């Protein structure tokens, strides 16, 4: 089956007063690899959800091979071979790869003939672009493997027009190259069309034929990749050229502040995920922890944040024992920016302003007479933070779950950085899925906190980010810190081997 010809004409989609997508047109003939770019909240996810029939568009039509697609029907889109990998994982964690693939089939019979299905699946996997063990449980896979399974699922469902919503934000550059490269080959063979949403220009130039750029819902530009350079694309995205970075390192580190004393923690599957992690972060210093995802970084952060039991060790701040209680968090001015903030650091159904107030709501001026909540103070503070951190749309009453990924990140960052002077800041992959402007903004904020004397622990899978920001870098592998270096002395090949768990 050939990929379909997809044409969107004048798509408009509003949420309340907000025009998330405003009169956007897009034509994708069969066999293209096209990129959809735009800053956070530009409307990329919303546009492709309209293409998928996941949202009914308010105006405009989607034509498949010239025929208008019936609106609001993902099933119909699927029938035409249109499929999508969402920005967040949709696999069932407790099931195996095989089960996830088979159960996704729309024409599933009441009683599944597993034997026949397995034969079919084995045949499919034989000619599939990536190799994943069909019997491994999803919860045991790394982010990169999960992403591969998501894509395999679409291919298994005979998707010929594949929409990928930021598939690489959770992947290492090597993993991203592998996945996108294999898809590129399928496109070259004329088996597939791909519409890729991404924030990474590198991927656009390496894999895409053309780009469409959205800005605040409107079509801000389009063109062939060959005719563009990254400065021009940045300008289309933001309506202005990329600004110079303002904040640099202005001081050198002082005395020790944060001390992790042999921390241990157990992972979800019951195995020891963090083993005796011991490190010191000094005043005015950023210490980075590098590593491939799934090597205990998540568990380490959760243990520090009080979301997971610490099975060994202790945390000290300025020589005092630290426990994750409200009193101590405040006293030690201890703030945390976990990855996936919607899942880990927000209450999605509560409003943006309320979420921003989580650190401070129970003390004046938000609290009155010891027990009353001053809702006006919360709304005012929310409005101020939304302005200061440029959260869009600037409406504090909106449920935070309705913000775009990047804007959730900004709102949570606002809370963690503005609830008092920061002494300790622990951040994990703070720039996953953010546009370059937001990345610059967050990097500036982290450096600013460092320059103001905070001890910053930055756990990141993005080595470039660590090399740019950190004063010292540890490599974490299989739950242990296995290597320490500084950005100046860093030997990339050596770090890579350490991350991969190859001792020298």
């Amino acid at each position: 089956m050939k990929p379909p010809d997809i044409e969107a004409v004048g798509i408009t989609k509003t949420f309340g007063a907000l025009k998330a997508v405003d009169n956007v047109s897009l034509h994708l003939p069969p066999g293209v690899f096209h990129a959809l770019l735009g800053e956070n909240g530009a409307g990329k996810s919303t546009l492709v959800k309209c293409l998928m029939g996941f949202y009914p568009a308010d105006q405009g039509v989607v034509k498949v091979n010239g025929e208008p697609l019936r609106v609001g029907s993902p099933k119909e889109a699927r029938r035409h071979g249109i499929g999508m990998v969402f920005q967040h994982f949709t696999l069932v964690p407790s099931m195996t790869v095989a089960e996830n693939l088979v159960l996704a089939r729309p024409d599933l019979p009441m009683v599944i003939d597993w034997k026949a299905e397995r034969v079919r699946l084995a045949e499919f996997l034989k000619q599939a672009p990536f190799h994943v063990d069909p019997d491994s449980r999803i919860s045991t896979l790394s982010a990169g493997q999960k992403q591969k399974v998501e894509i395999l699922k679409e291919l298994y469902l005979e998707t010929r027009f594949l929409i990928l919503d930021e598939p690489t934000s959770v992947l290492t550059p090597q993993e991203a190259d592998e996945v996108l490269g294999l898809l590129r080959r399928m496109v070259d063979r004329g088996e597939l069309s791909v519409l890729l949403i991404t924030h990474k220009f590198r991927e656009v130039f390496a894999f895409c034929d053309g780009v469409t750029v959205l800005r605040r819902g409107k079509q801000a530009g389009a063109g062939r990749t060959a005719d563009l350079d990254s400065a021009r694309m940045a300008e289309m995205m933001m309506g202005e050229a990329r600004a110079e970075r303002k904040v640099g390192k202005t001081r050198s580190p002082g005395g020790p502040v944060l001390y992790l004393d042999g921390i241990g923690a157990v992972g979800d599957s019951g195995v020891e995920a963090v083993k005796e992690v011991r490190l010191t972060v000094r005043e005015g210093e950023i210490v980075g922890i590098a590593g491939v995802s799934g090597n205990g970084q998540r568990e380490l952060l959760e243990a520090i944040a009080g979301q997971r039991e610490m099975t060994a060790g202790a945390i000290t701040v300025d020589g005092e024992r630290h426990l994750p209680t409200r009193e101590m968090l405040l006293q030690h001015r201890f703030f945390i920016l976990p990855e996936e903030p919607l899942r880990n650091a927000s209450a999605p159904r509560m409003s943006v302003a309320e979420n921003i107030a989580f650190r401070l709501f129970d003390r004046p001026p938000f609290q009155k007479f010891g027990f009353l909540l001053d809702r006006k103070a919360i709304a005012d503070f929310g409005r101020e933070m939304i302005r200061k951190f440029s959260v869009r749309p600037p409406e504090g009453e909106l449920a935070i779950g309705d913000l775009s990924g990047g804007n959730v990140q900004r709102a949570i960052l606002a809370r963690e950085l503005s609830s008092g002077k920061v002494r300790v800041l622990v951040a994990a992959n703070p720039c996953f899925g953010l546009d370059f402007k937001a990345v610059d903004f967050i990097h500036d904020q982290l450096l600013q906190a460092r320059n103001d004397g905070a001890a910053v622990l930055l756990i990141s899978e993005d080595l470039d980010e660590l090399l740019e920001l950190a004063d010292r870098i540890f490599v974490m592998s299989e739950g242990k810190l296995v290597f320490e270096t500084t950005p100046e002395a860093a030997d990339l090949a050596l770090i890579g081997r350490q991350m991969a768990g190859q001792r020298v």
Partner: protein
Amino acid sequence: MKLKGPDLFVPLGAVAAAMLVFGVFCAALGVNPLGVYASLWKAGFGSWYSWQNTLVRASPLLLCGLCTALPARAGIIVIGNEGAVVVGGLGAITAGLSTAQMPSLVSLTFMVLAAMLCGGLWIAFSVALQHYRGVSAVISGLLLNYLAIALMNQLIEGPLRDPSSFNSPATFPLPLDHRLGFFSGTHVHHGLLFGVIGCLVAWFLVERTTFGFSMKVAGGNVRTAKLVGLPVGRLVVMAGFLGGACAGIAGMVEVAAVHGRGNESLNAGYGYTGILVAFLARQSPLGVMLFSVLVGGLVAGSGMLQRAHDLPDATITVLEGTLFLFILLSDTVYGRLKIPGGKANAVAA
């Protein structure tokens, strides 16, 4: 959270759908559904007299609804309401009988406090089991209901039994002036006040206090609550205690206003119906006020169905069950409907 369009439309839609199915059920029994609807309306809301009946039924429902609605805001599903009503009633009668010599107001105060303590601890225990030991509060609540009923039978047939109560065992009666009175000119007892005040206080607690806010954070996302250092265990157990205390007062009201003594009627099903009320109200205390009256009207109409249409008493239970089914179903619809003022499903970007 403000009461938004869908918070009202969706449950009312579920009520309408349930009524429709219930009508088909009546038709299948050979009774004209329109006649049944008319009777239900007449018995529940048709006259001042029937309104009074409805309000009498609504007063325990207000409190029993809170028993589910309050812990729900902290993210815990409680269905042990019936047990909390029963132990609350037992606590109240025990306190009432042991303070029979004291002034009426003092005795009543002790009864309320004892009822709150018993009902509160009952539910708090079940919530604590879930939080600290991983036993679902739904399961433990259900089992604790049976335990409470067994305890009641044990007490009213044993140590608390009034020997003069032959065929239906009961405790000694409360002195007449130690009972709750009636609003003048009506047969609506003062228990209604407890219910209304309970809902207003609960609303205030949830929406206007820092405690209520903490509860909502814990209910909204436990991981986040831990991240910002909230004592999640204490919060959910406290929410359970408050909910249980409300159900306990419902038991006290049954004892001190309706029966004047403790007997088997403590286990009259208000606890279960309260769960229905809470779900209809989407766990909002103000919604509990509205839907207690609505469901109270249905309960009040059950007798009428028997008299006017020769339908068994349990027919209304069928309606309640259908209603529950539809309200649970509607939860899957909620958010997908395009209702003016509503918002689309929160799909993470």
